[in-house]
């Protein structure tokens, strides 16, 4: 085992580590450095200006403040709704069926539901954006929801859901939930399948209903999966941009009501030529992501139950 070990290790690590350092680690480090300058990005001229960019971030009421608010809302709502629905559906598929002779079963057609629910996960965000932009379109442009509302005699927003200041963010979050639920259904479902059926049967003999089975048995045993899901969804929430780019007017409108942090970084870096400012916002995003992951892993560090 000793013979020629280090040359072998080096030869296997050189390419992946080199590429990773060159295209991932160094650019991230550079972004940190850039955030302390006044670099526009187009010239080679810049000075170090300390924390000025960071201070100015919180004075930008046109882009940054709305973006932080909206990303904050997505960060709260998306994981909560998606995990709740994913758990609910997974529980239904695994435990929600008829109980025959005291045995617990999933509903019939569970496999079919899994296939259907999961499908949006394999569609690209570009395709999802095109689909839903048309679903949300105004009445005169053939929007599905608007058409449906009109068919039953209800009013629809004149300019469609995405041009409505009060509806745009909720509409986008709806699409995010739509595309994510199937993934977490399958994710939780595989975790639930490993919980021994005896637990439930014992619970039923003791007279527990479905709600008690869920809250007393399933949820505590699934806690680690929920934590993992929370981290994944938080990262997705912080990185929301492509749907905004595809669907909303002015890629963040109307009137900044769907600006998100990722989108604002992109706008400042590639549209407004304010590279240093964009980097400062990116650094903030980085630390928020890091903090969330640490917090999610700390909170409710339950005792691991072996079964």
């Amino acid at each position: 085992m000793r013979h020629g070990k280090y040359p072998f290790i080096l030869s296997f690590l050189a390419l992946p580590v080199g590429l990773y350092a060159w295209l991932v680690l160094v650019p991230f480090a550079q972004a940190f450095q850039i955030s302390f300058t006044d670099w526009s990005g187009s010239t080679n001229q810049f000075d170090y200006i300390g924390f000025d960019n960071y201070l100015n971030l919180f004075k930008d009421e046109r882009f940054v403040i709305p973006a932080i608010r909206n990303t904050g809302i997505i960060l709260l709502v998306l994981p909560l709704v998606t995990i709740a629905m994913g758990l609910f559906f997974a529980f239904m598929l695994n435990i929600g069926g008829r109980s025959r002779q005291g045995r617990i079963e999933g509903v019939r057609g569970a496999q079919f539901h899994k296939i259907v629910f999961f499908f949006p996960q394999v569609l690209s965000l570009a395709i999802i954006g095109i689909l839903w932009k048309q679903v949300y379109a105004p009445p005169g442009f053939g929007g599905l929801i608007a058409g449906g509302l009109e068919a039953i005699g209800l009013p629809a927003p004149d300019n469609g859901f995405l041009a409505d200041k009060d509806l745009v963010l909720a509409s986008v979050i709806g699409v995010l939930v739509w595309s994510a639920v199937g993934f977490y259904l399958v994710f939780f479902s595989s975790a639930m399948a490993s919980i021994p059926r005896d637990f439930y049967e014992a619970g039923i003999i003791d007279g527990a209903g479905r709600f008690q089975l869920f809250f007393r048995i399933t949820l505590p045993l699934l806690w680690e999966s929920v934590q993992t899901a929370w981290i994944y969804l938080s990262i997705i929430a912080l990185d929301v941009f492509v749907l905004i780019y595809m669907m909303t007017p002015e890629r963040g409108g109307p009137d900044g009501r769907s600006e998100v942090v990722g989108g604002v970084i992109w706008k400042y870096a590639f549209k407004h030529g304010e590279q240093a400012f964009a980097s400062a916002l990116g650094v903030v995003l980085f630390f928020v992501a890091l903090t969330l992951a640490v917090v999610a892993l700390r909170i409710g560090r339950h005792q691991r139950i072996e079964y």
Partner: protein
Amino acid sequence: MAIRTPEQTEPAAPPARPERPAPTRTEGRVMNVFSHGFLWLWAFMVVVPVVWVLVASFKTEREIASDPLGLPATPQWENYVNAWNNGNIGDYFLNTVQVMVFSVTGTMLLGAMAAYVIARYSFPGNRVLYFVFAGGMMFPVFLALFPLFKTLQNVGLLNTYPGLILVYIAYSLPFTVFFLTAFFRTLPTGVAEAALIDGAGHYRLFFQVMLPMAKPGLVAITIFNIIGQWNQFLLPLVLLNDPEDAVISQGLANLALRQGYEGDPGALFAGTVMAMVPIFVAYIIFQRQIQAGLTAGAIK
């Protein structure tokens, strides 16, 4: 390792069980209707936008705008012709395939090499290296976009496929290494030792013994990377500016933004359907592996 579905873990109910008075029977029935209702409602909500756009892709522009809930009077096949010819959907397909043949192969090769060494050899800095790779999963890509743009520009790889391929590989490594390291650790040591005693070198051990043994893990993570890179949008948006070179998701986005509501929505939907068809077919055939591959992060 593989996701086990409840159907597989649950043997057929033993027939000889004594009937016991079930206090949950009524409740069970109510719950059953209730749960079925919600499941079907959600299934309906998933299917409707997709099927509806499929129908819309056969409509005239006027039908799309004025009769969103109706069926086309005559199917407009020329929407598909227009999408193929004017929308260049075919070219975008080929572009994407060209990029991914190299990027997925490269990701798997480099990812497996790094993960294997990290998982099965002890050397100074082993743990640090693992965390440096795994930590990459947390970095928001937005932060690196502009430095990355400059890096590629400086070496003349901006707006080129080799540049995009290298970036895809680099940004797919964190999860690939994270996942495969865990996988290689689970492989039995006995086989490796036997192979070494038989005189196999480290290289032969890797390519002829360990890689074949790691096949289930490699398949899962390959599917994960194929789907991830096929759907990638942000990186090509920034690193690939020539519309002619666009990959599929970028090409569709350009089509959508160029056409807006005024252009040719029929062709846009036809293009969208064409982009969905191969994904749909692959999904139906490989759905078990895809679900396992994409939820692979659940298994640690």
